């Protein structure tokens, strides 16, 4: 216990952190909430621009009613629903495989971890190059300079090339590229967490399983996964939170258009919507969108926690 006479010392030690938190976290949150509920807030005048200072839910109705909102919400939810399960299962399999081999384990671990320390815009550009088709597409006589690495591979095996991300591309093709990119980008962190979890499981459970002639698949599903369930829950929850905040990956591939050239904004996400609103000097709308996103993440996380409490075992 801190001596009450010494308490001021404790406060001094805490002061830098508290000041920074108040300034850059608490105050912006309060500000966001107040801006979202102020009618006609303008960043220039600081007060309701239309007539008077007035509270209301106009920002929310306008954001929800905005033509881009539904698309952004759909994109965000779709990305989450597709990428989180895929990346979690892949990460689990890779982590189990990594854990079961002895030679090169450290080297492979490093390779799998590289995307984590690489700038996501740079990765996005690399991905864009892999999927980019350069030339004139869709004209009567297309002039194509490069099909991109992925199409080269498809053509090598005799398939038809696909317009992944360029003007005139289909929505599913755009979504496919995004899912591949986000899954790949999400793997390292998940592998790291799961590998750590795997290495802390007592080897005796596996010896016991061996004695009981347990088939490999059953060892994975009945022993490894349940014993790893706290880690899996953590990975899924953070995965969903990260997924709902997806933005840079899309900007990295499609640029600030947030979509192929012929249909800008088609791949926009919730966070993209917030940035768009800010660019249009619509802080009220951006704040409202941010609060809506916060609400969605909160609900999804609560559901996740509720499910994981039922499914994790200890």
């Amino acid at each position, binding site marked *: 216990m801190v001596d009450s006479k010494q308490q001021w010392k404790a406060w001094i030690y805490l002061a830098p952190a508290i000041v920074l938190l108040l300034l850059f976290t608490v105050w912006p949150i309060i500000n966001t909430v107040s801006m979202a509920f102020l009618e006609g807030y303008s960043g220039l005048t600081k007060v309701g621009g239309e007539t008077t200072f007035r509270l209301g839910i106009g920002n929310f109705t306008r954001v929800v009613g905005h033509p881009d909102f539904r698309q952004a919400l759909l994109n965000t939810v779709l990305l989450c629903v597709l990428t989180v399960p895929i990346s979690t299962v892949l990460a689990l399999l890779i982590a189990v495989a990594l854990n079961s081999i002895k030679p090169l384990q450290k080297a492979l671990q490093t390779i799998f971890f590289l995307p984590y320390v690489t700038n996501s815009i740079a990765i996005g550009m690399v991905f864009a190059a892999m999927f980019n088709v350069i030339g004139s597409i869709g004209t009567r006589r297309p002039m194509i300079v490069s099909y991109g690495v992925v199409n080269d591979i498809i053509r090598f095996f005799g398939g038809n090339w696909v317009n992944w991300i360029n003007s005139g591309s289909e929505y599913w093709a755009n979504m496919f590229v995004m899912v591949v990119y986000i899954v790949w980008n999400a793997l390292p962190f998940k592998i790291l967490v799961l590998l750590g979890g795997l290495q802390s499981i*007592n080897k*005796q*459970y596996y*010896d*016991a399983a*061996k*004695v*009981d*002639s*347990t*088939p490999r698949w*059953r060892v994975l599903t*009945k*022993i490894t996964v*349940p*014993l790893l*369930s706290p880690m899996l829950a953590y990975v899924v929850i953070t995965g969903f939170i990260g997924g709902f905040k997806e933005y840079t990956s899309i900007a990295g591939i499609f640029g600030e258009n947030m979509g192929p050239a012929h249909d800008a904004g088609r791949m926009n996400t919730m966070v993209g919507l917030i940035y768009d609103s800010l660019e249009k000097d619509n802080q009220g709308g951006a704040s409202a969108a941010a609060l809506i996103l916060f609400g969605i993440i909160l609900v999804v996380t609560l559901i996740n926690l509720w499910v994981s409490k039922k499914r994790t*075992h*200890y």
Partner: protein
Amino acid sequence: MKIVLKNLTKIFPSRNKKAGEEVIAVNNFDFTIPDGKLIGLLGPSGCGKSTTLYMISGLQKPTSGQIFFGDDDVTELSTENRGIGLVFQNYALYPHLTVKQNILFPLQNLRGEDKMTKQQMLERAYEAAKLVQIEELMDRKPSELSGGQQQRVAIARALVKMPRVLLLDEPLSNLDARLRLQTREEIRRIQKETKITTVFVTHDQEEAMSISDMIVVMKLGVVQQIGKPQEVYDSPENLFVAKFLGTPPINVFEGEIKSGKLYIGEAAVLETPGIDDQPVHVGIRPEGFILDDNGPLKCKLNNVEVMGRDVSIVSTHTASQNPQVRSIIDADNKIDPDTEEVRFALKPHKTFIFNKDTEERIFIEEK
């Protein structure tokens, strides 16, 4: 199912390559474990007893030598295919499964013609649970059980698939003293009922002696002696075995053979015809002393502990290798705790002579 161990050897390569010192955990273990018997592998830690057990289980591969279950050579057979039951020292119960699910687990792994219906599995699981008396705990998780109960669940899980061989690794070490006594009787009872050839590992000689049909005493990877517990106790083949078995432990003296007589200090305590003159170790079991006013062995009396059934006399002797000489005599003998000196005669069959250098037993010819 008898288990045959043929020249079984396990060498662990040295971790430090420069030092190049490999560890011979088990050295040339040769033994046939008879069918349906309970065998105790006994020795201090690091003697290779657990390694031997794990080689029988298949979790560790022998460096050389062979293992047979009955007539089948299982040396190269993986653990999965050996059909053994193993109870781990820490039980290794799956923490996320209930007791019932834990016991069912090995049955659910059965494939092919051994595959059972759900009903059959449940019946077998309850049979096993009944054997170890945990039927009322079937829906609990392992974390909700006491150590003794976990132990029983582990045994039930090992027994449920009717293994050819049951292996127990220090099965009682995590239990408190009372539970230990109770559980070892349980193990004995279960083994008798199931008649499964059982090998268990322990460092507690009392435990091994009390329930085993045969014990194997090991030291530094080398088998010292194999036999029925009483035989090994009554006739140890070397000083290590003599010292390791028995509570209170055997009393060891410096002695000498001179012209057919065994001397401890100045006193000739025993006739030893036909043994060459040489310095020796003399081991005398605590119950090998006879209180005798004219006895040859004179000790300085420290104190007398009365324990009801018998009396423990604690004394000292200059030739003793232990700080104290502890003898146990019948409580009918009266001894005055204030006397300075206490004199003993020795029972010849409780007195063992060992070579000074090799520490091997020198047998006295029966007259």
